[in-house]
């Protein structure tokens, strides 16, 4: 074992961590598809999928088998290259963002000093998945969905970044670990409540979750940008949406709810409990709120959320300047 120098073992451990986090993220996204259906059932006074295996626990396996063996059809009128590329972008950009999330003090893939900005960059790239997917499908519903998606995502990304800047100003760093450590005494939900509220809204909008699912809008657009996708390509879009949900939940926990911090229980348990809570909240929001009209979504973003984040940032900046030791 002479080759197992501390350096090599550190690299191996980092790779192991990365693999585990990647697998857990994808699996969690897949599991959420079933959990969401069960929870929606609970909140609509029905059961949801409970046939496959005990209490429907094997539903996920059944879905996976089905989606793997579906015909992977590419429409003859589609733009082949982009059609194949789009789901990969959807999945990859979201999974890359998991890199910056510190799960416990010892776990987490990259300790980037631009952590938060990296997430915003990946969220920016993620738009292309929808945009190219919708355009390459050669379908008018898909195109409308793609256009809605890109307009909505651009709108909400603007103040998503601004909502996070309050946190950055308080913590004095873009680094996620520094942000978590800055919340040792007080979670940022208290001083940054409006930042939290707007980030939650923006997070829902950017992942195209209800009630901001106009890009997909089953009832009007028949699934929007992924209408022509089938088989595993659709699966990547589908799981990607849930992975995005997990990602936004984890980010909210890290940025506003003290990450792994909490009394008595070990850090990992705290982190997963908090993340789980926000995943439930996402589903609850889907279960209760109707989809607003499209122009309302845009005007709400520009006329309510953007001014709110700007004022929030202004006040935060002023307070930070006043409190700063000279």
């Amino acid at each position: 074992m002479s080759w197992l120098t501390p350096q090599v073992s550190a690299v191996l451990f980092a790779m192991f961590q990365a693999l585990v986090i990647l697998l857990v993220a994808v699996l969690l996204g897949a599991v959420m598809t079933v959990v969401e259906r069960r929870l929606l059932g609970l909140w609509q006074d029905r059961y949801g999928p409970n046939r496959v295996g005990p209490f429907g626990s094997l539903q996920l396996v059944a879905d996976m088998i089905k989606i793997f063996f579906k015909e992977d059809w590419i429409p003859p009128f589609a733009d082949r290259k982009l059609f194949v590329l789009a789901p990969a972008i959807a999945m990859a950009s979201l999974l890359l963002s998991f890199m910056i999330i510190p799960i416990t003090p010892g776990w987490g893939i990259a300790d980037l000093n631009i952590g938060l900005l990296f997430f915003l960059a990946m969220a920016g790239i993620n738009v292309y998945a929808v945009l190219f997917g919708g355009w390459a499908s050669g379908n008018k519903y898909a195109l409308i969905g793609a256009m809605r998606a890109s307009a909505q995502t651009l709108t909400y990304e603007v103040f998503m970044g601004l909502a996070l800047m309050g946190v950055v100003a308080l913590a004095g760093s873009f680094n996620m670990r520094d942000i978590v450590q800055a919340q040792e005494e007080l979670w940022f939900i208290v001083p940054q409540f409006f930042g939290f509220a707007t980030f939650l809204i923006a997070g829902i909008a950017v992942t195209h979750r209800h009630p901001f699912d106009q890009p997909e809008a089953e009832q009007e657009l028949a699934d929007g940008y992924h209408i022509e996708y089938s088989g595993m390509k659709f699966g990547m879009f589908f799981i990607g949406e849930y992975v995005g949900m997990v990602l936004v939940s984890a980010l909210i926990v890290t940025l506003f709810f003290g990450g792994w911090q909490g009394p008595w229980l070990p850090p990992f348990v705290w982190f997963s409990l908090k993340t789980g809570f926000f995943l439930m909240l996402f589903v609850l929001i889907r279960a209760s709120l109707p989809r607003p009209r499209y122009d309302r979504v845009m005007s709400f973003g520009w006329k309510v959320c953007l001014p709110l984040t700007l004022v929030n940032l202004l006040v935060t900046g002023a307070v930070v300047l006043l409190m700063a030791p000279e």
Partner: protein
Amino acid sequence: MELAFYLSGGVAVLATLGVITGTNPIHALMYLIVSLIAVAMVFFTLGAPFAAALEIIVYAGAIMVLFVFVVMILNLGEGAVAQERLWLQPRTWLGPSLLAAVLLVVLVASLVQGGAGQFISGEPISAQAVGGLLFGPWLLVVELAAMLLLAALVTASHIGRRPEVERWSESKGRRPGAGRGKGNGGGR
């Protein structure tokens, strides 16, 4: 880091070539996005992660989306591809590429003379340092840019304004006129 620099630089060059030679506008834009991301990676390897992130967020994530958006709406078909093919004849690109080659020679010459013997390295420049520079020595430039953007914003707001009659969607709502104009006023 040096390997990463050359790799991403090569990707940037190739992708930019793809932009120029591509006949399908959307594919060309795709190459342009890849090129921008590659340039961001170059920034990253040079120790400017903040600039890299901003490059992706602003250029690849926002501006290019608008480009793609517009090209998508234009609904360019086979005709556009044929036209692009036409433009790729040697007599069309010979002149510009000659001029570009001259510029390249100048660039290489100045690099060889001025920067010989220097290696790719550098201390990572943090966001704090960038902010300090922006709001310290370069404050005036930032303010000027802000003024320019404000003017652009006012213009866009004015052009985007419609007469009251056409605003049926707003006036039918519960809050006639509420929130109008406040969106711009609140933040400034």
